């Protein structure tokens, strides 16, 4: 029999820290109109938002739970407290952030990242942003980077025009839920022609038993603007099921370019049912870089709508499913204008009984002539207890297009290992090298500190356990 590659679990103790909870306000369990009204009142929201929430709640109650994909029957949404505000007001200075919250962030490396000249840190603790900072130069250029709650009030017109217009509560049950109970998140507005040369980073996490996370991210890039937004998350491990149903709406203007990077590393009891969507105008570019490592269940399919001529989308993703995980991820691209192009490069690794599922959609609408698309999926099976599935769907409604798709599944090639061993490398190291090589295209797309984090993650997964 051929040898198997054994890969052990990562040491998660760093991420599984848990602070004592101090709450100012805790909403009642279960979802009723009263709860929604309370949340809205607590946030001092304009009336249209309160009404929007109530309407979403109605849609939520009507919609069925999707009957495909992951089994989410164990998820008891009514029991997940939808809104927990930490005992912390919004801070501008790191020194004023409460000590226990800071400790957790410290161990996650946030202040260090700040020192390394990141543009701003919107760290979300529970449902509200507790720390916010943006470099002076950017503020002077008119760049807005603030928490979503305040944006609703301060930039009401812009928010009202865009909020849940790409992802509507009618899309699916969890989008409706999000519309009803959303809380926290980031708002980014980059004026025409401005190039934000340092990545904007938001590190948020959950820290209360049974707390759901429903942050809303809204990014608007005007004509010719350029920005890179990084979303990262990690949560302590609890015994109660947790739900993440955030929404990310990205509006990329003409000739604008947005890169949206995510390293998702939720604790292994999280249900990550997130929705992400970008709309790209003429000559605009959206680049997704997506790493899915954590959570118990993920269903995440970022969608790019190429709405203007020559718009472009790129998706680079890696999914790593280990014991007890069902990670159902994939990219969706809608070619809705002529001469649009898209590239999807998705990789997955499954081990220790983990289940990785690629589910993608590529659609070329009737007017998408001269469009080009390529989709490439590769799956690595590290043992035969795991499951790896690939299901890409292509829908083509015009003829003058060029579509290519490829998918592969298999394990680490023995020939490659023997070759490396013949060059004097140990078997263990050879296998580790191949796995690192497998994720390299994704690591290359990440900013340095995230690439390092990704590499550490992979190294920890592989350390001393291959052979």
């Amino acid at each position, binding site marked *: 029999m*051929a040898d*198997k590659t054994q890969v052990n679990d990562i040491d998660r103790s760093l991420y599984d820290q848990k602070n004592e909870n101090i709450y100012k306000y805790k909403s009642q369990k279960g979802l009723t109109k009263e709860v929604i009204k309370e949340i809205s009142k607590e946030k001092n929201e304009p009336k249209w938002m309160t009404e929007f929430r109530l309407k979403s709640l109605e849609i939520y109650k009507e919609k069925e739970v999707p009957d495909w994909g992951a089994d989410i029957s164990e998820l008891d949404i009514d029991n997940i407290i939808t809104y927990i505000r930490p005992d912390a007001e919004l801070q501008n200075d790191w020194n004023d952030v409460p000590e226990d919250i800071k400790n957790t962030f410290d161990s996650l490396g946030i202040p260090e990242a700040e020192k390394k000249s990141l543009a701003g840190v919107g760290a979300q603790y529970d449902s509200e942003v507790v720390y916010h900072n943006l470099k002076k130069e950017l503020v002077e250029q008119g760049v807005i980077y603030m928490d979503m709650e305040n944006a609703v009030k301060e930039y009401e017109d812009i928010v009202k025009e865009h909020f849940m217009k790409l992802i509507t509560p009618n899309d699916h049950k969890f989008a409706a839920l999000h519309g009803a109970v959303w809380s926290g998140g980031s708002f980014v507005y980059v004026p025409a022609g401005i190039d934000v040369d340092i990545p904007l980073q938001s590190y948020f996490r959950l820290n209360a038993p049974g707390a759901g996370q429903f942050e809303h991210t809204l990014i608007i890039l005007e004509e010719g603007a350029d920005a890179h937004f990084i979303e990262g998350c990690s949560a302590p491990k609890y015994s109660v099921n947790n739900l993440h149903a955030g929404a990310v709406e990205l509006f990329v203007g003409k000739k604008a370019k947005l890169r949206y990077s995510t390293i998702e590393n939720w604790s292994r009891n999280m249900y990550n049912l997130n929705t992400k969507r970008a709309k790209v105008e003429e000559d605009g570019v959206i680049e997704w870089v997506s790493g899915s490592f954590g959570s118990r269940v993920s269903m995440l399919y970022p969608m790019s709508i190429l709405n203007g001529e020559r718009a472009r989308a790129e998706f680079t993703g890696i999914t790593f499913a280990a014991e007890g995980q069902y990670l159902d991820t994939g990219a969706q691209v809608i070619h809705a204008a002529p001469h649009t192009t898209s590239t999807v490069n998705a990789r997955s690794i499954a081990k220790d009984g983990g289940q990785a599922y690629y589910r993608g959609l590529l659609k070329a609408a*009737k007017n998408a*002539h001269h469009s080009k698309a390529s989709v490439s999926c590769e*799956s690595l*099976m*590290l*043992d*035969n207890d*795991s*499951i*790896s*599935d*690939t*299901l*890409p*769907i*292509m*829908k*083509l*409604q*015009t*003829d*003058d*297009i*060029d*579509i*290519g*798709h*490829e*998918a*592969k*599944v*298999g*394990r680490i090639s023995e020939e490659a290992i023997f070759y490396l061993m013949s060059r004097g490398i140990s078997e263990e190291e050879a296998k580790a090298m191949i796995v690192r090589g497998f994720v390299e295209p994704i690591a290359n797309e990440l900013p340095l500190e995230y690439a390092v984090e990704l590499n550490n993650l992979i190294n920890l997964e592989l350390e001393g356990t291959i052979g």
Partner: protein
Amino acid sequence: MYSKKLVDNLTTGQSKLLSKNRRDSFNIYSEINEPNFERIKILDYNMPKYSPYNKEYLKDKRGHEEIIIKKMTDSFKDEKEIIDFLDRFKENKVEKGNTGLGEKYTSMAESFYNTGLFIKSPAGVKVSIPVEIYYELDKENPFLIDNNLIVAEENSILTVVIDYRMKDKDLEAFHNGLTRVIVENNAVLNIIKVQRFNDKSDNFDSNFSLISNQGELNWIPIELGARNSLTNNENTLVSDGSQASISNVYFADGDRKMDIAFKINHQGRHSTSKIESKGVLKDRAKKVFRGDLYFQKGASNANGSEREEVLLLDKTVDSDSIPALFCEEDNVEGEHAVSAGQIDQQRLYYLMSRGMTEAEAKRMMIEAAFNPIFDKIPLSDLKGSVINEIKTRIRE
């Protein structure tokens, strides 16, 4: 219409076990609701009225003395054998992946079939002359439900050609077929299926196979006709070293709708499969291609590949492709690829620069793409008429 009474009529004079099989299938049939085929937009489909099929469909040939061929509608003694073969399919059902036409259609075929053959090449019998079956629909016989069972026993070699055809251009005909195939140890079976009904007829066809140790099954399905054509072809590589290949051509023009599904379940070690599909979409045609490669746990050293190439000739076509890879075993190699687009412009201009018209050049390139698969049709008459049909339809 499709009632118990009709089943009773059909079982009159038929032997005991096959009659029972019809009745059991009817029980399943009557409990299931009509399925909707959403992707291809065939909703609330009304099955036409039952009528018998009275035409001879088996072509007698010399050289087939050693093969056993019987009509499923007849009464015969050793029917136990057939039931035993059919029971194997019940024992080996795979749930994952595309579901084909569903049990409504397969149980309908099994309870109301009006034609069908049991063909068996006994152990060790190697026959090179193909068995030819012509299911031809006409005014007197516009309704066809064929229930076929083809078995290649150990170490045998057999080729079967089934041609579903019609001459009448205006007749509204119906076909729902069920073909089950068993390939035993070390046997080789080739099945060529050509479907060229007219633009007013509907075609439903389900195919299932089980392949054992070192057995080999080669399908050549050629889909050219029907207004709505929904076909499913599912193969299970049950044990070590079994092989399946599918070489498919489809040509959809006019307002034709096609839903073509292929599936390979790898269960045996060192099992191999290859799906190759080449298609052309023209006018307002719509097609859905589904191809599943499923590596079940235990299928170590299995190898499967799938490739779909589709040429889009008009702006108004609609093409869906859903290839899937399901994998529960690490020591396998699986891959699929899809490419879709127009005819290669450079080659087209090259041919035109040599004096061909655009239409001629296109026709030649399409033929060139299809020919490697057409070359696998063992009957030159059939091959010639298929090629001719495509030629005229490209020109139209």
